[in-house]
């Protein structure tokens, strides 16, 4: 048991160190409530550590975790309780940089299906093909969602000019 628990310790630390930021970011995209974020963290990492999937590569593991986290976030925000309550910490965004804040606001205000493609494409740097796999969508759907998200963002951030070309 000692051996096992010490082994477990390492694995836990390693996993948290490696992925906590990414999971937190995804959570940030979807959730506005600290408690929900905690729930998602616990469940996502528990799943990761309990699963007996053997990952082909680091990339595979990461993509898998992405998908798990996105699904979990959706589940949480879809839940009955969430639907019927308004969080008080809603939309609290702690950024000083006006530009950054603006872009982030714009992305966050997008519908879910655009948010996830934008995040995966621009931040994580996945190709449309990979995104399609992660989200279990058709590649063409990913392309059109990306396109529409860009249109919306352009419209939102409008006039501010040249630098907003994704």
């Amino acid at each position: 048991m000692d051996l096992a628990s010490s082994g477990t310790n390492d694995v836990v630390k390693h996993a948290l160190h490696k992925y906590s930021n990414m999971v937190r970011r995804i959570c940030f995209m979807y959730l506005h409530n600290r408690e929900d974020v905690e729930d998602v963290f616990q469940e996502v990492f528990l799943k990761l550590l309990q699963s007996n999937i053997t990952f082909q590569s680091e990339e595979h593991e990461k993509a898998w975790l992405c998908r798990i986290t996105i699904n979990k976030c959706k589940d949480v925000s879809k839940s009955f309780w969430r639907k019927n309550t308004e969080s008080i910490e809603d939309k609290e965004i702690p950024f000083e940089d006006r530009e950054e804040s603006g872009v982030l606001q714009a992305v966050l205000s997008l519908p879910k299906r655009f948010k996830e493609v934008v995040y995966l494409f621009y931040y994580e740097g996945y190709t449309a093909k990979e995104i399609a796999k992660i989200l279990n969508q058709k590649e063409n759907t990913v392309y059109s969602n990306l396109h529409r998200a860009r249109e919306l963002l352009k419209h939102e951030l409008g006039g501010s000019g040249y630098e907003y070309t994704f």
Partner: protein
Amino acid sequence: MNTHFKSALNKIVAEDDLVEKTELFLRANLENSNNKKARSAKQMKKLLVASIAAVFVIGGFIGGFAYLKTPVAYISLDINPSVELGINALNNVVTVEGVNQDGETLLEGQDIINTNVSDALSQLIGSASDKSYINDEGTTVVSITAESDDEDRAAELSDIGEKAVNSEMDKRKVSVVVYKDCSDLSLRTEAKELGISPGKYKLIKNLQALDPTLTVEQLKDAKVSDIMLRARQLIAELDTEEDYSDSPKSKEQKEAIKKFKDTANEAHKRVNEAVKAAFEDAKKQAKDILNSAKAKAEELRAQAKALLKSTKGMTGAEKAAIVARAEELLKQAEVLINAAGEQADELRAAADKQKGDAIRAAERLREAAKSDRVDDDNVDEADEVDDDADEVDDDDDQDADEVNEDDDVADDVEGNGYQNKMRLGKQ
């Protein structure tokens, strides 16, 4: 823009307390479930399979039990005790119900649940015979009605019933007339509402087709034998009516006639035979008794005469003893003759009673059918019976007269004895 987005998101990092909390949670959960969880998933699967299997097994038991305990067909046995048996899909008896008072009596001490239909009916008919619901003359009509929505099955059940009853009766050397019929289950509900057995209800319905003035109430407690006799009368009536009137028989009537005819004729034949046999028997017995009494009295008389003759040339004391002996013999003859007369009277009474029994059925139904129609056939039958009885009476009377003559002879002898005694006394 892209860089802004990236840098903005880069600023989002997992808070230390969040990571710590998660770490604590993970450690707590993984420690006590590291081995357990993985195994318990498998166990859950096994448990699931086991419970599904259990559900099937239990369901199978319940289903099987229901299958074995639910009656799918009924047999109603009517003599006058009416009994109804519920039969399951395997032809075993699962419910038993006495429909009327006699039915309850018939079922007393009978355990036929879970026995085969055939055995159950044998047992019941045996019990009916023991409890004298079936008479020895063979005039009893036993009705067996199988009720099932499946016609073939009903026919099969009624055949089984008929065979069971006949074989049991053969064993007991008693004959009965078996009337078998089938019906569907809808009839059963109607009969239940009226509080009679479905078998009898069907009989009554058929009888009503022949005579619409009859009501269920009148026929409710009638014996099946009586219903059969009445049916024969009605059929005969309709046959003769047809010759004179234009109204042809209705379809129901024709069906009822077809159903009843054979059984009713058989029952009627047997009743007539039984009545005749009973009177023949009574006549013969009465004659036998009187003849033997006559013979014995004759003997005694002869003895007395011989004794009196032998007194000649004897002393007084000896004579007196012999006369006393002769007197005693004569007295014995008197007693014998009187006893024979009494027995003859008893037989006459018994014959009267039998006559009553025989025609009571007819009378009962005559009362039951409150119609104005005079039942020629019935009257004929009753008259026939009456004639037979009268004949027996006449014979009895004749015999009694003969006996009385014998009495006179005895008196004569006695008188002679007296005279002799007197003579002896004088001497």
